[in-house]
């Protein structure tokens, strides 16, 4: 018995060190030619029209895409959320199904249907130019209630969730604020100016890249995860030591 408990404790104490690395990518503003729009239309009809309708006017299975802009397409297709893999509460992130050129063509086609937000200028995607402190104030007011105070994500109603932001590229962060994918509210340029969006991006980069002084973060999910950890591992250690302490020696 005491041996078993000792073995369990040994297993528990061999926790590994954990380091977090984040990668980031940069984006450039795009301009579209007529051939882009043509190519995009072909891709759209063969891949998207089943749900969004042949002219992107929407069907009962998918919303109208007229006026959503190139930014929405670049976000949804670029993060792999679209094409949708299955109907459900929320479209999950997966490997992008189209190449960068194809995404550009699709964006060009949808942008040609009606005016909407375009792909953000690279000037507003440079986290180093943003003010992380001001971004922190905006993030805590506008984003943290769903995405967690350091962007670790969180649960919403009925199976929906706010995703983790720490690995999301600057361009996709900007586009998400601009277009409000799925149930996320839209933060237009009157609500958060492009400079303020850059501040928010700068904050997200800063908090995801700063090493944690307290050691293992447990996903930075807050008191529930930490309480659960202490409940299982802390109490198990206390019980284990107590059992060993009072067990008779052979």
């Amino acid at each position, binding site marked *: 018995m005491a041996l078993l408990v000792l073995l369990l404790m040994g297993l528990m104490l061999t926790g590994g060190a954990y380091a977090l690395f984040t990668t980031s990518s940069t984006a450039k503003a795009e301009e579209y030619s007529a051939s882009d729009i043509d190519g995009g239309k072909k891709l759209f009809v063969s891949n998207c029209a089943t749900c969004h309708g042949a002219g992107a006017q929407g069907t009962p299975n998918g919303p109208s895409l007229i006026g959503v802009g190139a930014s929405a397409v670049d976000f949804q297709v670029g993060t792999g959320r679209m094409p949708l893999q299955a109907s459900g509460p929320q479209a999950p992130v997966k490997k992008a199904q189209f190449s960068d050129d194809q995404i550009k063509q699709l964006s060009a086609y949808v942008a040609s249907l009606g005016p909407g937000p375009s792909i953000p200028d690279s000037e507003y995607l440079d986290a180093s130019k943003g003010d992380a402190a001001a971004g922190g104030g905006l993030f805590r007011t506008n984003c943290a209630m769903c995405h967690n105070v350091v962007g670790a994500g969180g649960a919403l*109603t009925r199976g929906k969730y706010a995703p983790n932001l720490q690995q999301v590229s600057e361009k996709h962060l900007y586009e998400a604020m601009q277009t409000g994918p799925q149930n996320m509210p839209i933060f237009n340029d009157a609500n958060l100016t492009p400079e303020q969006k850059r501040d928010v991006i700068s904050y997200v980069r800063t908090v995801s890249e700063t090493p944690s002084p307290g050691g293992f973060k447990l996903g930075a999910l807050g008191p529930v995860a930490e309480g659960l950890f202490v409940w299982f591992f802390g109490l198990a250690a206390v019980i284990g030591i107590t059992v060993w302490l009072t067990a008779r020696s052979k």
Partner: protein
Amino acid sequence: MSSNQHSGSTAGELEVVNGFENPGLPEHKPRITDVEPAAEKVAERQIAAWFLLSMVGTIWFIVSYFLFPLDGQIGSVRMQNTMLGIGLTVALFSIGIGIILWAKTLITDAEVSEDRHSIPGSEEDQAIAIEIFNQAKNESGIARRPLIRNMLIAAVAIAPLPAILVLRDLGPLPGNKMFETLWGPGVRLCKDTGGVPSVETPIKASDVTIGSAFHVIPEGMNKSEDPLNEKAKAAVLLMRVDPEQLNTKPERESWQVDGIVAYSKICTHVGCPVALYEHQTHHLLCPCHQSTFDVTNHCKVIFGPAKRPLPQLPIKVDSDGYLVAQRDFTEPVGPSFWEVHTRETESR
């Protein structure tokens, strides 16, 4: 009071009750270290090894203090703390393990029982106590002098009154504080920047596009006497919903501007900020206890522990196109309290 050693299955002198016999103490089995000198030697060396490990931990603490200096970066703090912590843990934990092993394997393990003494004192002691009591009664004359006795009782009885009186300093009573916020006729709705920097930008109705959510504070909040307390009552979430999707009560028809609605952000359960807005389902979720409010139905509660709908702020557009409040909330914001329905909040 008596202490005796057992080395077999002898039991105390107890009567047999209900046919059960006192099984007594279990048979004493000698440990392997008691009978085999080789095992005893091994145990001794193990314990010594634990104490040696403790010394290694202590030395590691001292070495790592110099080996991992702080260079002002947070990473170096983390590294040094980890290394110092490992050293200290090994040093203290090993001493403890060594001592326990010593007790378990080498120190004698004979069971010893000690009987409880009886609770009452001896008759002699009791008689002395009664005598002392009676002596005090006679010498003080407390039974013979009722005036003094009664005055003493009265004095002691009212002595705690000052302590009750100073509870008044916890006040003043809240008065209308629970019923009023900074909102009033013509107060502009401003964007909340989270306090960094604390500028207040008023919001134009045309800026609030469908699907948008604005986090709102009343204009002038940062210049008020106590901005954070005011914000805790006056924080508002502004959303624009397709007017066709809104079910508006007739008396609230004029409280919105073309589908733009403003609701208190303070949960009616225990006052957390309700701000998880889903712009397709129009659900507002409170992150603390999952109370869910339906924005299309006057923020009525559709899930969770909240009991009242979120209070709605009546808004309109002023002559410059900015959104302004028509008046204060018509009911108290935040958690319910006993007097919540006793007063109509007044329009200032």
